[in-house]
């Protein structure tokens, strides 16, 4: 189990920084469809904050903030968002992943594609952030497991 | 010459009984009687279908079935021409008798794994008829390989280490040969653009340097099953199989598939003209002549009766090869006739060997003293077949040898006449002592209480012995073997023989 970091400076700085990093992550996600950034990058930054929490404030603190099962579920939901947005195309008579036909009221033309990409990016962000956090959690926990039965 | 080709289902129909029987036998593994019934029914049906085609084939009508395409441009075609009918009629006719004999044999010895035995037997006959009727090289190869694989379990039937060893040797020889044949088939396809059997051959003038390697591969491919020396070693070893297997497969179906293959390839793939132009005739003929003499000599040295018969088979098979390789009409007739005659006589001898084994447990020539008095029918049949094989008239062996000698003289190849005569003498040299000691030497004391084997064993061998005499006296009865042989010889060499 990862313990709380000894240095009070580290703990305080992390506590203070995490919300800003998370805000930045959201910024990166929501700009992805027309500027550098996107779901993957934003998702990674988001995941980094949780890893930071675990490293600086201890695993217990991370578990207090988010449950691993919920994170896993969120990542699955992210992928589902992606898939559903993609399958909407065929359902509305266009190609797979064709966002031009997404039903967005009040917007028409190329901007619809942009919105479609945004939906996808949000899905990706959920998926990536969730998956990376879970990978970290599992790997961090794995080192402490009991010895495997050596056959 | 080659008669009309008519599309018909009969050639394929001839395959059905054995194939279906194999499946049924496998499924009725718990009912011995049912299993044997299927075998008998299938053999009878197969013989009937094949025999029904013979008058037509003898008159020059070729029935043909084209089944699925094996490969683009190469159909699975079954064609009942004269040559094919000879082999098919021989195999299926003798299968009927062998089935009866098998039933007696496996029951008499309480053999294990009888389901597998009858299953593989039916499959082998399926393949043998397929080989007979194959209309192109690929079809031929297909059935040839099925024949190899389906006889393997029969060779290793006893499952003793010696039998397994024999099975390995059998596979090593036959599958290597199969590989050589496959290579030759592909090469033929590339050279000729077709692999169809056509009277007179399909290979035109070949690029220089290809004929001999190709011929070598082809002869290696079929020569192993035909037990041409030095490819014969598997045959005596395979005698470890149960006697009916040795009788039908290693005296008739498998080895005859080999010599039949030689005839097919010489006559219908390579073609006599090509062979003559390259002087390959005499190479094959001398190979055969060497095998005839060496096989006979080796047979002299055997004490185990079945091994003796095996070496005799090695020797006799090459009569067929020699006959065709003489390149004269009479020789070809004699050779093709000898497929039948040797089959009938050799199966009689094997039946006798098996009957003796079932009745007395004896396998060695030296143990047979006086046995002729206890088992008169068996040893009588043995004597008829053995003398016939040596060429004593009126049995069938005389007739085929007569034609062979005539063929050799026609071609002015008198050395082969000497070979044939020498071989006849050698035949007598190894068969006569057996007969003499069986009938005229006093039995050893342990021989008390030995009687004739059960009827299921004796009746088939008596019938085949009778058939071998009948074939010598009236070669067109009951089956028009002689007409078929002369028509086939005519197809190959382009002339009609009377």
């Amino acid at each position, binding site marked *: 189990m990862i313990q709380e970091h000894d240095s009070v400076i580290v703990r305080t700085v992390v506590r203070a920084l995490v919300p800003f990093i998370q805000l930045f992550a959201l910024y990166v996600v929501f700009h992805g469809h027309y500027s550098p950034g996107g779901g993957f990058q934003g998702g990674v930054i988001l995941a980094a904050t949780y890893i930071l929490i675990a490293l600086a404030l201890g695993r217990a603190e991370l578990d207090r903030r988010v449950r691993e099962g919920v994170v*896993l579920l969120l990542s*699955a939901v992210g*992928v*589902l968002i992606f*898939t559903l947005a*993609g*399958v909407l*195309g*065929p359902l509305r*008579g*266009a*190609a*797979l*992943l*064709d*966002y*031009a036909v997404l039903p967005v009221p009040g917007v028409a033309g190329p901007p619809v594609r942009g919105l479609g990409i945004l939906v996808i990016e949000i899905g990706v962000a959920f998926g990536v952030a969730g998956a990376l956090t879970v990978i970290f959690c599992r790997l961090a926990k794995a080192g402490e497991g009991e010895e*495997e039965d*050596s*056959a | 010459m080659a008669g009309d080709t008519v599309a018909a289902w009969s050639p394929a129909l001839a395959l059905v009984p054995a194939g279906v029987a194999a499946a049924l036998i496998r499924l009725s593994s718990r009912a011995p009687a049912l299993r044997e019934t299927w075998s008998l029914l299938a053999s009878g049906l197969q013989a009937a279908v094949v025999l029904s085609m013979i008058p037509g084939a003898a008159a020059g009508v070729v029935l043909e079935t084209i089944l*699925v*395409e*094996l*490969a*683009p*441009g*190469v159909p699975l075609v079954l064609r009942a021409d004269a040559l094919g009918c000879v082999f098919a009629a021989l195999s299926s006719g003798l299968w009927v008798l062998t089935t009866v004999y098998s039933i007696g044999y496996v029951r008499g010895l309480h053999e*294990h794994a009888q389901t597998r035995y009858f299953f593989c037997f039916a499959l082998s006959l399926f393949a043998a008829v397929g080989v007979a009727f194959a209309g192109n090289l*690929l079809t031929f*190869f*297909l059935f040839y*390989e*099925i024949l*190899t*694989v389906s006889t393997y*379990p029969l060779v*290793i039937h006893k*499952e003793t280490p010696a039998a*397994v060893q024999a099975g*390995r040797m059998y*596979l*090593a020889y036959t*599958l*290597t040969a*199969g*590989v*050589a044949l*496959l*290579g030759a088939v*592909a*090469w033929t*396809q*590339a050279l000729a*653009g077709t692999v169809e059997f056509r009277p007179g051959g399909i290979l035109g003038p070949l690029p220089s340097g290809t004929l001999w390697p190709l011929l070598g591969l082809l002869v290696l491919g079929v020569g192993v099953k035909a037990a041409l020396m030095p490819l014969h070693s598997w045959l005596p070893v395979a005698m470890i199989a149960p006697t009916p297997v040795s009788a039908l497969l290693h005296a008739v179906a498998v080895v005859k598939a080999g010599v039949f293959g030689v005839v097919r390839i010489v006559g219908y793939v390579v073609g006599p003209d090509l062979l003559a132009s390259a002087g390959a005739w005499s190479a094959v003929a001398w190979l055969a002549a060497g095998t005839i003499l060496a096989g006979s000599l080796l047979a002299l040295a055997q004490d185990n009766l079945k091994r003796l018969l095996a070496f005799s088979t090695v020797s006799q098979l090459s009569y067929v090869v020699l006959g065709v390789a003489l390149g004269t009409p009479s020789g070809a007739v004699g050779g093709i006739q000898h497929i039948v005659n040797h089959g009938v006589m050799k199966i009689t001898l094997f039946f006798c060997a098996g009957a003796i084994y079932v009745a007395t447990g004896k396998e060695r020539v030296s143990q047979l003293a006086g046995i002729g008095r206890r088992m008169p029918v068996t040893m009588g049949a043995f004597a008829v077949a053995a003398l016939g094989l040596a060429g004593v008239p009126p049995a069938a062996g005389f007739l085929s040898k007569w034609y062979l000698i005539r063929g050799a003289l026609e071609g002015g190849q008198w050395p082969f006449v000497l070979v044939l005569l020498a071989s006849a003498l050698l035949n007598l040299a190894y068969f006569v002592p057996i007969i003499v000691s069986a009938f005229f030497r006093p039995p050893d004391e342990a021989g008390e209480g030995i009687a004739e084997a059960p009827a299921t064993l004796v009746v088939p061998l008596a019938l085949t012995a009778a058939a071998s005499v009948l074939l010598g006296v009236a070669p067109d009865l009951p089956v028009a073997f002689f007409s078929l042989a002369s028509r086939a010889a005519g197809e190959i060499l382009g002339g009609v023989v009377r």
Partner: protein
Amino acid sequence: MLSDHLPPFLAVVPLLGALLAPLLGAVRPRLVHPLAVAAGAATAGLSLLALREVLARGVIRYHLGGWAPPWGIELVLDPLSAFTAVAVSGVGALALLYAGPAAAGREGREAPFFGLALLLLAGLMGMIVAGDLFNLFVFLEVASIAGYALVATGGGRALVAAFRYLILGTVGASLYLLGVGHLYLMTGSLNMADLAQRVPELASPRVLAVAVGFVVIGLGIKMGLFPLHGWLPDAYTHAPPAVAALIAPITTKAAAYALARILFSVLGGAEGLGRAPLLTVLAWAGGVAIVAGGVMAIRQTDLRRLLAYSSVSQMGYIALGIGLANPAALAGAFLHILNHAMMKGCLFFAAGAAAARLGGPALTDLRGMHRRMPWTTACVVVAALSMIGVPPAGGFFSKWYLLVGAVQGGQPVLAGVILAGGLLAVVYMFRVLEHACLVPRDEDEHAGSDPALERREAPPGMLVPLLALGVGILAVGIWNAPIVSGVLGFTAR
């Protein structure tokens, strides 16, 4: 609607299954296996439908998101890819069915297992439909990563095997990517059809040779081409039976398909590669693989390891056919993709069933198998005969086309190698058959020929896929001509 979207759905259906598996696993673990089988069967059904559509309508090109190539991502189904899709998804679906009983007794592990298995299938199907080189890479890695993880589920030695597989597989994928990068630099395109137009105009054949060399080596590693096969024997041997049965038949085939696709559809085959001896080298590498794999297989005492080396040998046939690059040899190579998938699947299915019922994967454990598991043994016999090349089993016919191709291509030595490979297969497969059918078990020696000997046939869930493959091998053999001329477009002169 369905038939319009076949190319993406071939990959999306198993992918959806892979996503749903963990979700379902959290609620109803028992339903995960049926879900996986359904997804696999649906993929196979779609593949068949795709094959029919392609044969009826011609090549299907699909533009993801409506973006036209060369900018957009294109998925392509032509007869070759549809054929490979049928082979891979068909055997894959049967392997998923088989995996149910094989993975039994691992409660709680179903969801990750079947999720990964479907992910693997999705990756392979993606490789097959991908119309550009980069997506091919992505799907290749999706399949490979799922494969690493699946092999690792064996625990113990499988972990080390999986690690080695991962390292080598990643090197292979990276080299492939490097080659693709060079191609992209030269042409500015990644789309296969677009590249095929641009490659002939290239000025620098040397850079092209480097690029193609990287691609071939990379894919060679993935397809286990000797001498790049180092990962393969351990991975197949130590993976759990259900995994070996899934991975062994199909993963290397998809890589072989990708290699053929790039060499012929992108680089233009023999004419396009011109003087570069690449194809000849590939053909000879295949020949060496046939012999080396066969010789190593003979030395094995563990059935799965024997089968693994036999895979090395059989992949050599496919490489040889690709390298010979004439119509007959290519028909043989593609037919062998199907045949080898089926027979290797059949044998690995049987190996798993035998290990479960008879106590172990060593050849000696197979003793007495024909009595205890007659149907399984029958399937092994059929697959073994196919491996050896005895007609009418399918394996014979792929070898026949390869042989005709070798003879036509003027390569008598390679023709000899093809034939010799058959003989090597005789030796190693008959070792298996002798143990399975002839040598009795020690305990049977005492029991004699007791008919009451315990029958321990594989459970139906294992037996059905086994029998399906056994029958399939024979059916493909008998009806190979329509496949070869109708689907693979090979016609006799």
